[in-house]
C-alpha cells in the first residue's frame, strides 16, 4: 500500500499547496518546492512557503507529487501523486445519504478546501484525469462547478471523474452544464436497484431513487457523460437482471455501467457478513445482467472482481480497477499469468474472502 499521508514539519503556519521537485525543470511554477536535503528518515524541500521537512519517503518517490501541507496537523497529503492514474480529491466529508456499504462514512463537519484543491489541480501532470469524491461533492455544487469550469478553462488537457449521489441536479443547472467545458467531466453515479424501495433502503434515504431519476433527466438534457455504478450486496444480487433491463430501456444514454464488488472498509467492515456476495458461487444473476447489457449495446464492466473468480467468458469485462495505493495480491497470485490485467484485492480485503483464488 502506498502512503497518502506523511508526517511533516513546515515553516509556514497556514496550509498550502506545493509541487515537490528533486531538481529544477523547464516547467517551473511558483508553487514548486525543490529538494534541499535528504537522509534515511526523509527529505527536505524549500519553496515559496519556506522549508518543508517530510519523513518516511525518499525524494525519488515524491518527485512531481502535488501535496497539501497542513502545518498544524504536522503532515502532508499527497493529493496528486506523479504517474498515478488514481488521484482523487476529497472535497467534503458531509453526505446526505448513508449507504449501508459506505467506504468512507460521512462526517458532519465540512472543511472548505476548494481554493487549495483548485491550486493543486492547476499543477496536475499533463492529460491527467482527476477524481473528485466525498462525502457528497454536489452539496457544494456551486463551488464544485466553478472549480471545474475554471480549471478546464485553464488546463484543457485535464478531465474529471466526479462521484456523486445525483441528488442535487436541477433544471436550472442544465444551461450551465451544457458548457462544452463539462465534456471533460464523467459523473459517476450509484444506482443499486430498479426497485425504488430497495434502492432507498440501501442508500439510507427515502425518495432517493425518485430524486436520482430527476437528476438523470437533467443530466441527459445537459449532454452529460454518466457512469452508473452498482455495488453488489446480498440485497441487490438477485435484482441485478431487473436493473439491467431498467438500464438498457430507460437509461440508454449512459456511457457505462460499472458493477462493483464490495470494499471491506468503512461501514462494510462491520456488516461484511450481511453484505458480501461470494460471486464465484452465484454468478448467474451477474451473468444475466451482463448478457442483457451486451445484447442492448450497453457497455457494462466488472470492477473489483479478481479474474480467476469470474467465469472465463466474462473475464474480459473484469477491469483492473482497484487503485494502486490500495491494491494487493495474495500468495497464490504469484504464478498467475493474468496478474497484470487483474484488479487484485483491496489491501484491507479479509483473507477469508480470498478462498478459491487460483493462478490462471
Amino acid at each position: 500500500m502506498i502512503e497518502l499521508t506523511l508526517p511533516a514539519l513546515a515553516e509556514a503556519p497556514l496550509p498550502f499547496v506545493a509541487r515537490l521537485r528533486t531538481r529544477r525543470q523547464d516547467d517551473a511554477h511558483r508553487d514548486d518546492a525543490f529538494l534541499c536535503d535528504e537522509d534515511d528518515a526523509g527529505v527536505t524541500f524549500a519553496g515559496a512557503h519556506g522549508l518543508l521537512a517530510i519523513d518516511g519517503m525518499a525524494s525519488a518517490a515524491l518527485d512531481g507529487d502535488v501535496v497539501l501541507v497542513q502545518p498544524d496537523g504536522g503532515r502532508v497529503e499527497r493529493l496528486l501523486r506523479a504517474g498515478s492514474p488514481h488521484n482523487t480529491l476529497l472535497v467534503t466529508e458531509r453526505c446526505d445519504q448513508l449507504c449501508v456499504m459506505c467506504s468512507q462514512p460521512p462526517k458532519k463537519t465540512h472543511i472548505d478546501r476548494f481554493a487549495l484543491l483548485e491550486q493543486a489541480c492547476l499543477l496536475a501532470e499533463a492529460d491527467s484525469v482527476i477524481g473528485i469524491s466525498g462525502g457528497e461533492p454536489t452539496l457544494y455544487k456551486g463551488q464544485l462547478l466553478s472549480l471545474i469550469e475554471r480549471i478546464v478553462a485553464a488546463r484543457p488537457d485535464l478531465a474529471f471523474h466526479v462521484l456523486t449521489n445525483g441528488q442535487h441536479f436541477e433544471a436550472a443547472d442544465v444551461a450551465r452544464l451544457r458548457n462544452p467545458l463539462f465534456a471533460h467531466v464523467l459523473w459517476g453515479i450509484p444506482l443499486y436497484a430498479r426497485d425504488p424501495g430497495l434502492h432507498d433502503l440501501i442508500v439510507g434515504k427515502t425518495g432517493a431513487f425518485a430524486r436520482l431519476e430527476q437528476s438523470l433527466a437533467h443530466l441527459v438534457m445537459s449532454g452529460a457523460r454518466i457512469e452508473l455504478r452498482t455495488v453488489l450486496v446480498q440485497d441487490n444480487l438477485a435484482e441485478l437482471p431487473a436493473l439491467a433491463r431498467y438500464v438498457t430501456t430507460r437509461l440508454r444514454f449512459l456511457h457505462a455501467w460499472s458493477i462493483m464488488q464490495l470494499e471491506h472498509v468503512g461501514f462494510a467492515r462491520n456488516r461484511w457478513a450481511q453484505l458480501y456476495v461470494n460471486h464465484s458461487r452465484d454468478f448467474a444473476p451477474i451473468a444475466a445482467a451482463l448478457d442483457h447489457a451486451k445484447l442492448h449495446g450497453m457497455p457494462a464492466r466488472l470492477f473489483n472482481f479478481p479474474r480467476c473468480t469470474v467465469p472465463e467468458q466474462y473475464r474480459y469485462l473484469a477491469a483492473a480497477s482497484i487503485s494502486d495505493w490500495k491494491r494487493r495480491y495474495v500468495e497464490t497470485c504469484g504464478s498467475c499469468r493474468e496478474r497484470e490485467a487483474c484488479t487484485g484485492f483491496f489491501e484491507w480485503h479479509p483473507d477469508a474472502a480470498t478462498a478459491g483464488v487460483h493462478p490462471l
Partner: protein
Amino acid sequence: MKRTRFLIPSLVAAGFGVPTDALATTPQLSLGNDDPNKATLFDIFKQGHLVTLAEHRSHSSHRSHSSHRSGSGGHYSHTSHTSHRSSTGGSYGGSYTPPAYEAPEPVTPPPPRRILPLRSAQPGEATPPPADALPTLSGRTERFKSIVKRVQIALLAQGYYQGAIDGIVGPGMRAAIRKFQGARDLPVTGTITSEVLDALRVSSE
C-alpha cells in the same frame, strides 16, 4: 384533408423522400422555447464525448482497418468484430455501405484523438481522513532545524541577522530573510526559499 396533412410527415418519418444522410436532418431538431442557446439536439449530445471504454482503445488507431482497405476482404477476425459490436451498438444496419477509399497509399495518420479511459474510482478512493497517530519520526525536526541553523549562520555572517542560532524561524529571522531577499533582488517572501538557500550557498548540494 387531415389525412393529407399527416401523410407527408409520416412518409418523411418512414424515411421516404428524405436525403439519405441522417445527419443532415438531425441538426434541424431543436429543443424548443426552453432552450436559451437554440442549440440543436445534435449539438448537445455530440458535445465532445471523448470517453471510450479502455477496452475500445485499440479501436481508435484504425490499424485493423488497413487490412480492409488493401482489399483482402473476408479477414474480419472474430475478436475485432466483438469490439465493433460493443462500441457501436446497433448501428450495423442493412444499408451500411463501406466508405470509398481513394488512395491505397499509406497516409500520415492524424494525431490520435484523445480518448479518456473510464476511471476506476471507488467510493472512498480519496485521501482517507488523516490517521490520528502518525509515526513519530524525529528526522524531520532534525533536518529542518539543521538547515534553519545554517541559514541563520549565513545571514549572521553577512550582517542581516543578530538573533540566536537556534534553528527556529522567528520574527527576527523572517525580517532578516526579507532584508536579504530585497538586497539580492530575490522574491521577497520572508521564508527560506530555494533561491535563498542558493544565494547563501546553504543547500546540501
